[in-house]
């Protein structure tokens, strides 16, 4: 086959894959801007011919519930940020241990990380509900934070240990000879060098916390405590025909995480190749 023809064919195929992958999200965004008569029209059009912000006004102006959308947004953001920071910190410590030291139980620890990643979290919701209830942490974001940190940790450590191992030990030794203490070495030498890996794990932790539904749904009672996914479920269940506002709310929930994801995509992929895949 002609080389140029093949090139065109492949590119066309690539564009098709792109279109299929993006279509559902693009359709969501487009629907969010369509007036109702266009949403329920018998001949759907790809773009709104008469774009409107009504659905966003409705969602942002307490149309969903008594609580402001921003409250949910704040709850979700707070949960995700605390999860990222705490699990990132703990993961760096543990990853340093497994990448830098040989110690008894090291293999046991690594196997534990693997096994824990496989535990069906959907099953843990039952005992954790009871435990948090006993601790009086039901219906609180703090209880959820704890749970999310636990969920984000194993994969973060698994991924980060490769990045720590890639930092030449000589750098740390040189710093030690120059008289730097362990803390200084950690913050001035190791941390900057594993930063790309930390970015990659942070995205995973962030997405874990931002997207999580079942625990937030089970643990939170009061509307003002809801996270965005719980709010979406509530809204979807109570107004299943209001596709315009539902798509507007979905857009507001989805776009931040997609934007975040795409901005750091490069780091993401390198993190992935380090952690999940090694031939």
């Amino acid at each position, binding site marked *: 086959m002609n080389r140029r023809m093949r090139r065109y064919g492949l590119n066309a195929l690539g564009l098709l894959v792109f279109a299929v992958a993006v279509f559902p999200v693009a359709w969501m965004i487009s629907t969010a801007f369509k007036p109702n008569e266009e949403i329920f029209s018998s001949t759907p059009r790809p773009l709104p011919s008469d774009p409107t912000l009504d659905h966003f006004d409705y969602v942002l102006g307490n149309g969903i519930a008594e609580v402001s959308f921003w409250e949910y947004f704040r709850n979700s953001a707070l949960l995700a940020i605390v999860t990222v920071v705490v699990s990132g910190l703990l993961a760096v410590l543990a990853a340093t241990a497994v990448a830098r030291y040989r110690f008894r139980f090291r293999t046991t620890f690594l196997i534990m990380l693997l096994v824990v990643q496989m535990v069906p979290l959907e099953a843990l919701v*039952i005992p954790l509900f009871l*435990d948090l209830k006993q601790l009086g942490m039901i219906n609180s974001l703090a209880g959820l934070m704890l749970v999310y940190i636990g969920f984000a940790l194993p994969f973060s450590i698994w991924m980060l240990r490769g990045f720590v191992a890639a930092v030449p030990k000589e750098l740390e030794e040189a710093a030690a000879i120059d008289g730097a203490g362990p803390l200084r070495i950690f913050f001035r030498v190791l941390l900057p060098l594993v930063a790309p890996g930390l970015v990659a794990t942070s995205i995973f932790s962030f997405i874990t916390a931002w997207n999580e539904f079942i625990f937030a749904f089970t643990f939170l009672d009061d509307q003002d405590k809801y996270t965005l996914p719980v709010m979406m479920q509530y809204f979807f269940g109570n107004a299943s025909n209001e596709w315009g506002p539902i798509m507007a709310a979905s857009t507001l929930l989805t776009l931040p995480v997609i934007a975040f*994801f795409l901005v750091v995509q490069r780091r993401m992929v390198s993190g992935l190749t380090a952690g999940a895949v090694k031939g």
Partner: protein
Amino acid sequence: MLDTAPAVRPTPGRKSSGRGRPRRPRLGPYLLIAPTVVVIALLMFWPMIQIAVMSFQKVGNRQLAGEPAESVGTKNYETILADDLFWQSLRHTVLFAVVAVSLTLLVGTLVGLLLHRLGRRMSMFVAGGVMVAWATPPITAAIIFSWLFGSTGGVVNWTLDLLPDLLVGGDWIDYNWFATPLRTYTVLTVCVVWQSIPFVAVSVLAGLRSLPGELFEAARVDGASAWRQFWKITFPLLRPIFLVLLVLSVIWDFKVFTQLFIMSGMANRDAFNLSLYAYSEAFGGMNAKLGMGSAIAMVLTLLLLVVTAVYVRIMVRQGETS
């Protein structure tokens, strides 16, 4: 953007065994992993033990109010094993996993191969688009697909209706995609596969980039077809990656919850899978049956444990834990 991957590829496990060991206090590594061990023990291992214990107990509203749980022996298990709903949920779980995993791996691999052959910019562009599916929260994915497959204004029915009747039959406009479990699971499969493909594609792409190009050049010179190249070179070399992807996909698809919960809900018992069934028993009714839910969750966990054992074996054999 994707090409920077090899630049930061670390080599865990291949540490300087010959170089001098760091002289640091022996306690160091244990202090470093201590917080993680505590968190995981409290949030994962302890609850796992609790599930195992609770699956032999009656834990309901009265126990939630503070009364001690009463032991019921194997009654919870006897009840579920005698219940058709359990077997139906199990069947749904397994069949869905088989179909979704096959599709995910097949299409994901094809997309990975395509990304590898595209030019640099095009590959970046397409990969970026594919990532969008990955980043979408499961809850919005489920809601979007409910809308796409909806019977009023849904774009899927509209498209199917436009296609020639010869291909797809007619009368699609009012087709209800959520009327039967089979149809619901069809939509669920499309939704879950759409979201899982990126991980497979990017992993396969990373694997392909790590292979020496000379192998393929030599094969091309010898006149090997693309099909032959894949089965004789790519697949054997990337076998470890495919194995890991297979196991991870099986585990993820076995316990799908959020999307099914949104599309079908707790009232629609006919469409339950094991995780929705367990959740519904535990939290669904006015009468909480956490013991029953735990028994079902135990079955799911034991099934996954078998798959996990395979996964751990692969990783240990690959030297990932050394």
